């Protein structure tokens, strides 16, 4: 794993970083919507909100509330105050990141707002871990959210418009997930494994020319493929190095494509691949077609299920790769393709 690391440098290969003092994930929180709560992972989320509006007037306010609650929950679980956090790194799907801006305003934590569509959790953890490991912050929160109704309104149709969703369409997750990264281990339960961010691989924009915004999995699969391939090449490892390779929201269609593409490069991930979008819903019972999607999808699955598995040492090392489709309604209307991006984070229980 260390052969490609040049002396003194933390840069590995073309796109990756291997941390010398890996930042710890000391706390996590997940707030989920009703449908997510009814899914297979429902009992793992910290809070399930039955009301899609969370007592607010608009979808946007509701999403901000989700994010606020997630941030407050993660602080409470860690036994910290907002003043203990140096920076907050986060973003969401809404135009100009309004869910984030309005959601975390009252916390008064300095913010680095980022946009990576549904790859935001990967981007937030990447940027946040660099800040912590570089000595620029003692503790940071990496956070993101999405809301089914808000996303439908922004990217598709008003909620009450009657239409048929294609089988390739995904279901935007209502939820907000976050983690606290810290330069020192502060785990509350000594019997749990400490969890660290070992390294990252920042993805580039990958565009195979697809224009079907109702088939996001296929639009993003090439980005996941390129980032995973790069991660394996940069570190000189095989997929079996990881107990799980966890993509964000490729869904059923995108996951099959990813496996096919990697197979062409002689990387077989069929036995250890998992997709948060597939795990979060029961496709048959919940009528979610290709699976869950949205920033919240990978975020709440990571901050609950994935971290639990690592804490319990069921998995020792995973590669977490949230994937994003970087389209806007304008680019779509103007006939542009749907570019994808994926950022990979190496997470280890130590």
């Amino acid at each position, binding site marked *: 794993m260390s052969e490609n690391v040049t002396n003194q440098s933390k840069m590995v290969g073309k796109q990756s970083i291997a941390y010398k003092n890996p930042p710890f994930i000391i706390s996590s929180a997940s707030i989920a919507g009703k449908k997510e709560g009814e899914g297979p992972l429902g009992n793992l989320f910290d809070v399930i909100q039955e009301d899609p509006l969370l007592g607010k007037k608009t979808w946007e306010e509701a999403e901000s509330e989700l994010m606020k609650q997630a941030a407050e929950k993660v602080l409470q679980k860690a036994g910290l105050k907002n003043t203990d956090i140096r920076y907050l790194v986060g973003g969401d799907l809404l135009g100009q990141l309004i869910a984030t801006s309005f959601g975390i305003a009252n916390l008064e934590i300095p913010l680095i707002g980022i946009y990576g569509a549904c790859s935001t959790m990967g981007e937030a953890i990447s940027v946040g871990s660099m800040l912590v490991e570089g000595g620029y912050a003692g503790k940071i929160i990496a956070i993101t959210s999405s809301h089914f109704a808000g996303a439908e309104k922004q990217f598709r*149709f*008003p*909620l*009450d418009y009657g*239409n048929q969703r294609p089988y390739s369409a995904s279901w935007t997750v209502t939820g907000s997930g976050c983690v606290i990264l810290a330069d020192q281990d502060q785990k509350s339960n000594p019997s749990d494994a400490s969890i660290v961010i070992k390294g990252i691989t920042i993805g580039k924009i990958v565009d195979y020319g697809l224009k079907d915004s109702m088939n996001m999995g296929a639009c993003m699969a090439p980005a996941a493929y390129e980032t995973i391939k790069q991660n394996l090449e940069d570190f000189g490892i095989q997929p079996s190095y990881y107990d799980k390779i966890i993509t964000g929201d490729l869904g059923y269609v995108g996951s099959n494509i990813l496996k096919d593409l990697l197979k062409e490069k002689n990387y077989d991930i069929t036995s250890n691949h998992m997709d948060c979008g597939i795990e979060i819903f029961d496709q048959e019972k919940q009528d979610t077609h290709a699976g869950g999607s949205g920033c919240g999808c990978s975020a709440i699955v990571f901050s609950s299920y994935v971290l639990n598995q690592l804490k319990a040492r069921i998995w020792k090392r995973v590669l977490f790769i949230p994937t994003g489709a970087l389209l806007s309604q304008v680019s779509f209307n103007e006939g542009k393709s749907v570019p994808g991006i994926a950022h990979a984070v190496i997470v280890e229980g130590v």
Partner: protein
Amino acid sequence: MEEKKKVSASGIVGQKDKQVRNENYKEYVKQITPKYSLGKNMAKAFLVGGVICVIGQGFINYYMSLGADMELAKAYNTVTLVLLTIVCTGIGVYQKLAKFGGAGTLVPITGFANSVAAPAIEYKKEGQVFGIGCKIFTIAGPVILYGIFSTWVLGLIYYILKLLKVV
């Protein structure tokens, strides 16, 4: 199928020419993406659309039995179906029907009514002017614009043909 799929994936990963790669990818994605059965969907649309039209005919007959002439009964029928659709949209029933019936609900006046009611509900929160006012026709707008425009074109053609004494 399995053989063909594998050929496609290698035509993507190994392909240096980006344009060819993108073409191959599009084809490959088309192959592996599950689709609705066309026959089943058409049957469902036929059923739902047919039932909506029978209900409409029922209204026409009813209004005529009250003494309205055909033209008036048709107009009343349209208004009634629009009202029913909007109420069904408001209580969340229409969306379920549309998911099942597809074009069967889209083609009759019900589809149009829903496409106006849905943005009105959604954008109410952004205010009467910039919300409902500006966005109520975001989906139905093209139908209105091009509907009126095409009737104007047809009218013009009809007028010219009339001048030429063809019709």
